Structures are given as structure tokens and as C-alpha cells.
């Protein structure tokens, strides 16, 4: 008795999403044939018709950017990949139900670290997404995740760290020793959506104290 082998030439059809940039990816299967090409379709959950994604038809690529097609935050989506070998349809596979709001991961923030004599200032720059508001402006992460906040840390030495957190974008660690190196980091959190970015890290040295020089 032969175990049922997976004769598909297509597998792992899924969305990879980061800061609302939604990329569909897939892999060729164990039985893939040289010369296989792929076509992508997508639709909104609840609709009947599948729409062909222009630019991802009969492609040899194994990814397709569906950011614009899946940019409505209140909608959920499906995508489908079909594999063709010369002259015949090999296989079709569908993604799981996708919601960018639930699935996207958050990249580390863009931060400027400013050393002073006895303090270090960390300025977080807003992260804009491809999502457009009704008035056409690009939505920042803060406008999408209502509970979003920042957590900043300054490592003074192996045993001593300082923490500051909040919804504001400016943080200043004060009372530091001049002319000393510190390791600063800031990450973004949106607890309701179980999202936490990797930290942005900066190594920075306070300025020498020249007041009595």
C-alpha cells in the first residue's frame, strides 16, 4: 500500500504583511515541473468573482504584491495561485482568509537619537502606511491602531536600564554622565492587536562637559 503522496506542484500560498505592505508568496511543490508558470487571482471574502491580478499572470516569480488590492482595513480577502506547465493547468491553491489589520507585522520605528551633555533625546518619526484615508492622505500606524504606544529603553550598564513609554513621540533620558556611551532602543506596541515591533537600536555617546574647560 503506497502512502498517498502529495502530487501538488504548488504549496504554502500565504500572505506576508509588514506595515500593511501585503505580499502573496508561494512555493513550488515536490512534483513541480520545469517551466511552470503561475497566475494570481484575488477577491474579497463574501464575493463570488475572482479577479486576475495584473502583472502576476503566467509569471515565473513566486511572489506577488497585492498591497493595493487588499488595502481596505474593514475587508477580508482571499488569494488563489494557479500553476501551469506548458499546455496544461497543474494545480490551484487558495490562501487562508486574510485581514491586513490582523495579520500585518510592525517594522521597527524610524528614530533620531540626539546626544546632549547630560541627556539623550530620542525622536520617533511617524510611520506612514500604504493605506489611504478618505481624504487621500496616507494613514500613519497611530491612526490605525488606537492603542499604539512607544516603549523606549536606555541601557546604562549591564545591570541598570531606564524606561520611558507613552503615545508621544519624543523621549529624553536625563541625568546622564557626560562623554559616556549608551545603548538606546525604541519599539512600537499595539496590544489589542498583539503587535510588537522589533526595536530600533542606537548606540550614542553623551557630549563632553566643557563648562569648566
Amino acid at each position, binding site marked *: 500500500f503506497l502512502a498517498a503522496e502529495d502530487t501538488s506542484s504548488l504549496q504554502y500560498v500565504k500572505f506576508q504583511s509588514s506595515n500593511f505592505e501585503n505580499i502573496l508568496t508561494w512555493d513550488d511543490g515536490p512534483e513541480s515541473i520545469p517551466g511552470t508558470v503561475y497566475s494570481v487571482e484575488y477577491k474579497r471574502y*463574501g464575493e463570488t468573482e475572482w479577479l486576475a491580478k495584473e502583472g502576476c499572470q503566467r509569471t515565473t516569480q513566486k511572489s506577488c504584491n497585492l498591497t493595493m488590492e487588499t488595502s481596505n482595513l*474593514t475587508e477580508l480577502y*482571499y488569494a488563489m495561485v494557479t500553476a501551469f506547465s506548458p499546455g496544461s493547468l497543474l494545480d490551484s491553491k487558495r490562501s487562508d482568509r486574510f485581514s491586513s489589520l490582523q495579520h500585518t507585522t510592525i517594522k521597527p520605528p524610524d528614530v533620531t537619537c540626539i546626544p546632549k551633555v547630560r541627556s539623550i533625546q530620542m525622536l520617533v518619526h511617524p510611520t506612514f502606511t500604504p493605506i489611504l484615508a478618505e481624504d487621500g492622505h496616507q494613514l500613519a500606524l497611530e491612526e490605525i491602531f488606537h*492603542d499604539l504606544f512607544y516603549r523606549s529603553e536606555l541601557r546604562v550598564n549591564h545591570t541598570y536600564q531606564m524606561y520611558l513609554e507613552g503615545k508621544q513621540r519624543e523621549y529624553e533620558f536625563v541625568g546622564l554622565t557626560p562623554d559616556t556611551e549608551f545603548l538606546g532602543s525604541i519599539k512600537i506596541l499595539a496590544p489589542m492587536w498583539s503587535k510588537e515591533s522589533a526595536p530600533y537600536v542606537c548606540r550614542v555617546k553623551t557630549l563632553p562637559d566643557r563648562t569648566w574647560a
Partner: protein
Amino acid sequence: EFRFGPCRVENVILLELWEAFRAVKDSVQTQDNITSVRLLKPEVLHDVSDAESCYLVHSLLKFYLNTVFKNYHNKRVEFKILKSISTLANNFIVITSKLRPCVKNDMLSIYKSAHRRFLLFKRAFKQLDTEAALTKAFGEVDILLTWMEKFYHY
């Protein structure tokens, strides 16, 4: 705190509801292969006024309690799904017990508007085979929670 128009609901942690559902979301949604039907469609939840929201959330949560979760319990499902359902159900009971939809005459048109939305959802549910409808409704709890989050004040 939830503020559904005039209705206030305190001491319900929305994150707990999300975590309960996320634990089973993929396995439940994978069982729903009817991708061309959405019960909580945009016409049910889009542009719901504050005044309507209390009526609508009350009807939806009552339906989930009395129809979806109740019948799901009779299905042979994994323990983790039952655990998720009990957390969601307990919180839905707390929410509905604290909602006091106003019944005054001048609110009749708003009540009717909310009820029309609810009937859209209920009709779509009834049009499906019972098993499929239960799975689909449970798989759409994320859509419900995403809508409820708009009325949640941190």
C-alpha cells in the same frame, strides 16, 4: 470601557476576547470553505451610528449566545474551541447584561434601522446549511470584534 451610544459597558477586556478567538481562528476559518458568503457583510456593520450601535450589538451578541455558541457546544469539537467559546460567551453575557437599549418612541426609527441590519445577518445565516452557518458565524467573530473595537475607549 465600551460606549455604544448611550449604552456603557465597563470591566470587559476586549483584548481577552481577541486572545480567546485568535487561539482558534485559523482552525475554525479553515473549516469554512464558502468564501463567497459573508454573514457580517459591510451592509450590516458599515456606518452604524452611535445611536444604532446599542441595539445592533445587543441583537448580534444575543444571537451568538443563543444560536451560535449554544449549538456549537453540541458539535464534536476540540477542547480548545470549547474553551475559546466559553470565554467569548461569558464576556458576551456580561456585555449584554449591561446594555440597556432605550425603548422610547422617539428611538423607534433608529431601532428599526438597527434591526434591519441584524435581519440581513440573520437571513444570510438561515440561508446556509446549519453546520456551515455555525462554522462561518464563529469564524467571523474577528469581524465582530473589529467593529466593536470602534466603540472601545482605552
